[in-house]
């Protein structure tokens, strides 16, 4: 057996510790993060996130703000303007599915329409 060539980035909202983000690498090293990136141009993305999260405990704002931070990180590091079909976004701690108050601690992937909304929001900010 050879090692699996994948880095796994896990997210969850823990009932005890709150939002959690972990990254495991093929060597067996794992550590928690406030924000992280992996793949080509990791370092550039990390530098960008470090600037954005300077003196902060976590990425601030609503889930929309966090998703927009993620998208703008990728698009500035890669200098690409995204279209909705080019992105995949998974969230935990999003709104309740039935629209009531509070957050849903479950994990789900955003739909293309939801991704398009965020892209629109970023475009409107500029």
């Amino acid at each position, binding site marked *: 057996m050879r090692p699996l060539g994948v880095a796994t980035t896990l997210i969850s909202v823990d009932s005890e510790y709150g939002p959690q983000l972990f990254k495991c690498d*093929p060597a067996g090293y794992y550590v928690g993060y406030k924000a992280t990136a992996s793949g080509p141009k990791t370092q550039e993305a990390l530098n960008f996130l470090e600037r954005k999260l300077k003196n902060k405990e976590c990425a601030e704002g609503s889930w929309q703000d966090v998703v927009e931070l993620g998208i703008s990180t990728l698009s500035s590091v890669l200098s690409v303007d995204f279209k909705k079909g080019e992105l995949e976004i998974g969230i935990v701690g999003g709104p309740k599915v039935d629209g009531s108050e509070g957050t849903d601690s479950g994990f789900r992937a955003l739909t293309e329409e939801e991704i398009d909304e965020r892209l629109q929001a970023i475009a409107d900010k500029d």
Partner: protein
Amino acid sequence: MTNGSFTRVRLQSHHRGQHNVSGSARQRLCRRTLSEESPGMRHMSGRRGSSLTFIRLQDKLIDPSSVSYVYKLSPSVGCVMTGSIADARASVSRARGEAAEFRYKYGYEMPCDVLAKRLANINQVYTQRVGTTVLAAPSESSADIATRLTCAHWAWRQR
């Protein structure tokens, strides 16, 4: 061919208009993109629960909706995989098994940190075999190192 050189070629293809890749280089590039199974990709996550993938599809004929790197491991834990998609699926299926077994054994959902530790422990075992190396490394910088060194050496270098 190392992973590093492949990435450079791929970047050229992306900015073809600006960089003026020569004809032969372009042909070589087409061959490489066709022979490469997994498309180029980037992942990043921010705290407060969101993770995202950017998949740059080299082959215009691929249906983007069929390419996914985001997986749900249990109702509360999700993940994004970086690197070889084939290995990623193997790893995801193992992780789902671990999460389900934990739920069955202890009666509550497997916490994220416990699952991360379990996956890291599983990965570590592979590094104990001398001479086995990672075939597809999850990032550009680790690619060159990982193809030359055993995974155990790589772990040491990463400290």
